[in-house]
């Protein structure tokens, strides 16, 4: 089936998630959609599969304009989407999952369904037992179940969202082999990914999105350099870098191991000096999040040791880390870092050392006045934090940091902030560095990583790179590592 998107627009408030995207996918093509997190890939696919409606533009299937109102509507038109987390019902049997969403009477014909099911799995060489339960399957097998279900429902366009995350190499081979058979049957595949390698191996053509816009298209064979440039933008002019690194180590990780549902990190080693800034790069979900939380004691490590200022804090709680001068600032400011409903003054009082039983409100207000001034927060001492803008919330969060500190761990310090706030926040952070605090931060903005870090760690599906010198590495090298290319073999 041929898919045409014409001038698709989608807004989320002031955010232009899809900006005039037009794309032509001939029938029987494997089309790759590349882009960073937040580039607008998922939004575009959700529009095509009926999860949301576009604010402008039109969709044509086999040349006919269609209006897709819901996922059920989409499948009626022949568009099916395989989500990153398969939308199935783990406590039910495979067959029941298969029957769900099937149009038809009140009593499904199970016998017929089993026959259809077995026919399909034979065709693709899957081995699935219709009577077993979904929760006994691996993620790869659940994808297979979803694929045959969508095909059985009549999908002629199959959208796959990051399908290679969380499945084994062998399952990936099988998935790719299956997908490569589809063009013969005129089934169109849309493969959404941020993994360069997968896209290069599988796709006939690829479209690259950045900040909501379609920035380029390419046909197989691809030039990696070209793709990286399109994904991350090529012209980045960095300001003068300055380093505040000093003698003496604040944090030492030796052979640290972390496990979470999706990935494992093994043998992470790092020594961070006073005043140093370490940037953690990688696409979201590559392991940098758990890594940062482990450095704060918020996530229990499974191996290795963590030392802060020479003290072994392995396995201790965040509050012990905090006593030793470690602070963690999460990205979700209103969800995890600030208390909606409390005022700025109340936040300052909470962050300070307790002084007696009763709060000195007068002193609290004075402290708030002073901090609001020195951090240039646009708000009153009596403003509740949720009424502040994002940039001012982040400033408030920074103004809560105690003094002195050994180590500040920050998730996305400037995400969603205006440029003035970005510059201001980094000036404040660098001031901390001059006083001897080290900073480790996560950012998906490569420019920010290269501009402000002294050294960079790159994460890719749980693998951690050696610390790279930010002064010498180029944005292209970084982009390739982030996309999973050029990793030394022994680290795999």
């Amino acid at each position, binding site marked *: 089936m041929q898919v045409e998107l014409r001038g698709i627009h989608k807004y989320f408030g002031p955010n232009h998630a899809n900006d005039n995207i037009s794309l032509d996918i001939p029938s029987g093509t494997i089309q790759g959609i590349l882009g960073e997190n937040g580039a607008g890939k998922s939004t575009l696919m959700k529009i095509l599969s009926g999860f949301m409606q576009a604010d402008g533009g039109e969709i044509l299937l086999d040349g006919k304009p269609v209006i897709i109102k819901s996922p059920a509507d989409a499948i009626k038109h022949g568009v099916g989407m395989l989500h990153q987390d398969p939308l199935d019902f783990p406590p039910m049997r495979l067959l029941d999952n298969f029957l769900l969403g099937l149009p038809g009477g009140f009593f499904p014909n199970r016998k017929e369904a089993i026959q259809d099911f077995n026919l399909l799995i034979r065709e693709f060489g899957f081995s699935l037992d219709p009577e077993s339960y979904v929760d006994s399957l691996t993620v790869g097998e659940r994808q297979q179940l979803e694929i045959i279900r969508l095909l059985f429902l009549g999908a002629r366009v199959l959208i796959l969202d990051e399908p290679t995350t969380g499945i084994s190499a062998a399952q990936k081979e099988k998935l790719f082999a299956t997908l490569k058979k589809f063009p013969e049957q005129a089934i169109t595949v849309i493969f959404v990914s941020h993994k360069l390698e997968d896209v290069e191996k599988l796709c006939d053509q690829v479209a690259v999105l950045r900040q909501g816009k379609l920035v380029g298209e390419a046909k197989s064979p691809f030039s990696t350099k070209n793709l990286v440039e399109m994904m991350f933008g090529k012209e980045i002019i960095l300001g003068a870098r300055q380093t505040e690194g000093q003698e003496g180590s604040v944090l030492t990780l030796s052979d640290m191991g972390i496990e979470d549902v999706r990935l494992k990190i093994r043998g992470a080693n790092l020594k961070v000096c006073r005043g140093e800034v370490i940037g953690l790069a990688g696409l979201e979900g590559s392991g940098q999040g758990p890594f940062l939380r482990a450095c704060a004691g918020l996530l229990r490590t499974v191996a290795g040791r963590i030392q802060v200022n020479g003290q072994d804090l392995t396995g201790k709680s965040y509050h012990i880390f905090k006593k030793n001068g470690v602070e*963690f600032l999460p990205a979700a400011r209103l969800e995890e870092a600030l208390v909606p409903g409390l005022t700025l003054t109340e936040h300052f009082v909470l*962050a300070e050392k307790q002084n007696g039983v009763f*709060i000195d409100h007068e002193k609290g207000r004075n402290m708030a006045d002073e901090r609001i001034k020195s951090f240039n927060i646009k708000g009153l001492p009596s403003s509740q934090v949720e009424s502040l803008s994002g940039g001012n919330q982040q400033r408030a969060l920074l103004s809560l940091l105690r003094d002195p500190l050994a180590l500040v761990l920050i998730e996305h310090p400037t995400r969603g902030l205006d440029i003035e706030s970005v510059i201001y926040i980094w000036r404040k952070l660098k001031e901390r560095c001059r006083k001897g605090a080290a900073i480790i931060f996560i950012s998906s903005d490569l420019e920010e990583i290269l501009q402000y870090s002294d050294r960079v760690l790159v994460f890719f599906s749980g693998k951690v790179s050696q610390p790279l010198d930010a002064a010498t590495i180029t944005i292209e090298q970084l982009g390739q590592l982030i996309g999973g290319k050029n990793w030394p073999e022994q680290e795999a």
Partner: protein
Amino acid sequence: MTKNSRLINLGFQLAALVLAILFTTLILLAVGAPPLEAYKNIISGSVGSFKKFTDVLVSWVPLLLTSTGLLITFSAGLWNIGVEGQITLGAIATTWMLRLLQDSGLPPALIIVLSILGGMVGGALWASLTGVLKTFGGVNEIFGGLGLNFVATAFTLWLIFGPWKRPGVGSMSGTEPFDEALWLPMFPELRLSPWALVIALAAIVIVYLMLQGTYFGLRLKAVGKNFKAAYLLGIPTWQYMMISFMLCGALAGAAGAIQVTAVYHRLIPSISSGYGYLGLLVAMLVNYQAIWAVPVALFFAGLNIGSIQLPIVLKLDSSLSGVLQGMLVLFVLMVEGARQQFMRRS
């Protein structure tokens, strides 16, 4: 807050009250009862005479104590539905202390004080069970508390018909009444004890000050409003939750203790009299503003006492006060939602 928005707020609150009364009126009409007559009876039954008003105060004391306790758990973001059982356990612990000490020869005043303190400890320990279930067992406090309420009721019945039964045969009328020397002193000719009033008022003042002006209160609010952020700010979150459960349990236990020492002078099967659930309504209505618990609890107690004579005069069930109280809470919550939307739009 500007003067204008305050007026708007007041308008919305009044609208809730009017809606609740209108809805209750509809129900009265539906069952064929004269609404005006019913309201008149409730008013004359609660403030019609000085004696009646003191009866309202008798009911106000345990309700205010319970609501005060619930303000603490509400601040910590907890739905302490188990408060009903905490009242009951407070009453049981008080009865147990009284039985233990009544023949000890200690001065009666001391015995009463010890018994009330015992009731508070009993309530606190019972509340800590809910806390432990939540913190270490992952059982939501609503389910844990509700379950423990049933256990508390069963425990009361077992005591009344088992080990503590009246000489001869146990009955639903409760255990053997205590000697008058062990009653909390009353105003002459009335059922009201000045000491009970003092305890309730002291409790609300202390809790008000605690929530308004102390580090403890502020941290508790932080835990209630954003658990994760509170932890990152360095507050030991589960310990604070546990303490708030126990403080609430202690105040509920005090309510139970007063039911035993000042009202019934014995343990009866329904010793908690639903003050726990009613206290939840009061706490929801005052929405963290502790001082408002005083008039709201008084209003609810008035409705309770006033509706007692409905069955006699109008052959209506006295649960009408419950209908009105429930409606009031529902409409206040609904109107609050409407107000927030209104404010956002304007």
